[in-house]
């Protein structure tokens, strides 16, 4: 795993996947930093985890499911009030084709 390193092009791909516009200089900076950080991450590759289940939620929590009850606590006006652009009660975005 220690051979996994990200190059400049890979960082640009990750930025694209993350929908983050970054300039060349930032991309270069991130490339260096990401490699350092991945170097730190590689520490765990030597640990044996055979037969170990991944842990997501760390404590024992009893399952809780909602009953199927509908409520209407918010008006559509309230829901679009924070939108940068709207038309009526709808959100407005650049053309999606």
């Amino acid at each position, binding site marked *: 795993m220690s051979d996994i390193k990200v190059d400049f092009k890979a960082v640009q791909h990750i930025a694209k996947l993350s929908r*983050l516009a970054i300039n060349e200089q930032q991309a270069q900076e991130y490339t260096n930093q990401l490699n350092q950080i991945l170097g*730190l991450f590689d520490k765990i590759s030597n640990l044996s985890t055979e037969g170990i289940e991944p842990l997501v939620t760390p*404590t024992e929590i009893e399952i809780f499911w909602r009953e199927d009850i509908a409520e209407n606590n918010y008006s559509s006006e309230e829901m679009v*009030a*924070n939108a940068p652009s709207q038309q009526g009660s709808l959100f407005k*975005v650049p053309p999606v084709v």
Partner: protein
Amino acid sequence: MNITFSSFREISEAIKTKKVSAVEVTKHFLDRIQLLDTKLNSFITLNENAIQQAQNIDDQIKAGDVLGPLAGIPFGIKDMLCTKNLRTTAGSKILENFIPPYDSTVVKKLKNSGAVILGKLNQDEFAMGSSNETSFFGPVKNPWNPEYVPGGSSGGSAAAQAARLVAGTIGTDTGGSIRQPASFCGVVGVKPTYGRVSRYGIIAYASSLDQAGPMTSNVEDAALALEMICGHDPMDGTSSQKVIPRWSADLKADVKGLRIGILEEALKSGLDSDVEKTVQNSIEAFKKMGAEIIPISLSLIEYSIPVYYLIAASEASSNLARYDGVRFGFRAEMQETATSLDDFYSITRGQGFGSESKRRIMIGTFCLSSGYHEEYYVKACKVRRLIKNQYDEAYKKCDIILSPVAATPAFKLGDRISNPLAMYLNDLYTTSANLAGLPSISIPFGLSKNRLPIGIQLTAQAFEEQKLLNAGFALEKASIIGKEKPYVI
């Protein structure tokens, strides 16, 4: 009465018996903010309705209503917690103008117990930072020495509390964000067991690690505030249904026979000499009070940093995908019609997020991406279980694990911000409690040669908050902080 240094119980007693009005108390702290916060920058937004809230408390008292235990206590809230009709930013430009139409459950519970919300506290952007230097709203200064950081990410909460700009504060802790700034600023900070506090309305950084908790001037206040904000919430499917004990009423400084495990790895790791001395003093204090001291080893603790950053960044990369300029938050100015959808997102997010958020989003995106998912994300989740298992083993031998909160006292502003890796390593002793979901507290205990506070971290088994608070309560009585005061006060 000296309102500034009074405990919750003292203030609310005085209000309920009409020795002082809630409005007077609120005004007192608002005046302090006015006077002192220009030096600290701990607040992002003040609540214009604070006095009105206090007036309501006074009216209720006049009407003879029975009020909650926090009646009239002014609180500052970290800006990660949504407050209805009060701007909530997460310290980010991307939420600079976000007005939530809802309260987080924690804030709702605080209000229900009578607390008055003074305003929203500064923090690292999306709680990503250990120095409060990643905030879009500028860094917070340490009240003990304004050249130093207050720690992070709940730096505004810690600083405002240490300078007594508020009676109490709420912070959030994903990898140490309550405990480390509490240590740096000399206040009490509690991260409860994962699942104790509802996460509803708390802006998510890393969902499987995030918990909110009180940051206060003493353990008694912390116990009372914690009691008020914990409990099952039908709006959070990961909130525990366990009954909340009466921690504040059952608080006892009795540690006779309590088994305190000393984290061996920490003492061997080359701690700052002031921190090491503080740890030794705390061990001595426990001994004197009749606790049993047991050396404990957690050999996997060195892996907690990579595991923590891997999991936190992975979850964050997904949690922060909702900031896209469509339904709320910042949207970059651009020619809407001439911009492709991908550019629309990328430009908005590129301008809206600061560099640390972007760094973590990218790390997380990479660690979850096809080809690396198993080796990074899944592997980290497996090691996470190993770490939790090691804690379970350790708690067969002891009740509480004692360690430093951080290897050093507060560092200078600007010292580490340009080196992300050095900043990450700062969280060595705090992240494992989040990974294992354990309750953990930072108790202000010592002072460095430079007169900077140093905290001691105590960590208990899941849902053993009472043991934790009792041990902290005992340790607090032996602390030298309390006699000492910050520079800004």
